[in-house]
């Protein structure tokens, strides 16, 4: 007579599987490179049309922006280190905002394990900012409040505490 798994048997057998499924998985650079290559290979798609599926892909993959605040002591003159990060398939990502004269060349993000990031030191206050992807597409930060914007472009706000 074959064994009929009991509830506890099933639970014991599933536990390792559950742990494995819950283990964080890093998406390597090749994942995004492959996705970009496949999208670009589709015929009849211009740059702007490319960005529709690309934007969806970026969002479906989790347009992750994590801004981490860490305080390394009372160094108020230099400000607190603030990390800006974005997960998106892109060739280049820049951070623009009230802290760098809105200059896309000022703070290019570097990519590691599929996430683009840069860390700045900011004094306490309220700052408007955005990400510029591949030079001409603006993204706000999904993890921070949207800003009122008189120019019609996605913009976020970060508040740095004292």
């Amino acid at each position: 007579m074959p064994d009929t798994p009991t509830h506890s048997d099933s639970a014991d057998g599933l536990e390792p599987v559950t742990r494995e499924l819950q283990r964080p998985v890093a998406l390597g650079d090749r994942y995004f490179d492959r996705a970009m290559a496949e999208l670009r290979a589709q015929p009849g798609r211009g740059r702007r049309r490319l960005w529709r599926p690309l934007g969806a892909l970026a969002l479906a993959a989790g347009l992750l922006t994590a801004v981490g605040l860490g305080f390394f002591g009372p160094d108020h003159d230099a400000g607190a280190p603030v990390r800006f990060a974005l997960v998106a398939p892109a060739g280049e990502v820049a951070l623009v905002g009230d802290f760098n004269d809105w200059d896309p060349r000022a703070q290019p993000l570097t990519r590691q394990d599929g996430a683009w990031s840069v860390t700045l030191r900011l004094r306490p206050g309220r700052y408007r900012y955005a990400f510029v992807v591949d030079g001409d597409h603006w993204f706000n930060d999904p993890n921070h409040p949207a800003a009122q914007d008189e120019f019609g472009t996605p913009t976020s706000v970060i508040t740095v505490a004292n």
Partner: protein
Amino acid sequence: MALGVACLLTPVRLGAQDPRLAVRLPGGVARSVQATIDSATADGLPADPLVQKALEGWSKGADSTRIVTAVRALAGSLQSARQALGAAAPTADLVAGAAALRAGAQPALLTTLRNLRGTDPLAVPLSVLADLLTAGIGPERAWSSVREMASRGASDAAFLRLRDELVPGTGDRPLPPAVERPPGSPLPTSRDRP
């Protein structure tokens, strides 16, 4: 359009121009913005937020009219914030106060918050108030939440937690809900430039 032409034709002082404006903006726009900045600083307002607004507009491809209008509007909000918060208010408080005013807060609320907080900085509570209003939280609820926390002497971190609780989608999370996020917005084309 008429405003833009008027702004460009406005006589300006031949004072020192902020080099960031001179380098990034066309001459006419830079001069109009600089005139607004000169007037604002003569009244004791900080220049940098106004410079940043102009550079923001330029980076976003806005035309000269929108840039000059935005800078003037911000100067007006900073002025109102300073009147509400006092002449000694630091720039960070003025910037956050201006944002709160532009989001719909009444100037009297800023003064009340100033009195509740004593000598503590106001940038974070005011910024949180602006965020709540911008996110569509009702003015009464937004203000009562901020006022209650200020009355209890809450820390800046507590104000930010309040904001994260009340505004959906904010706060550090590993995977934000993608469906709520619009795709990136392309810049306006260069033909929008003056």
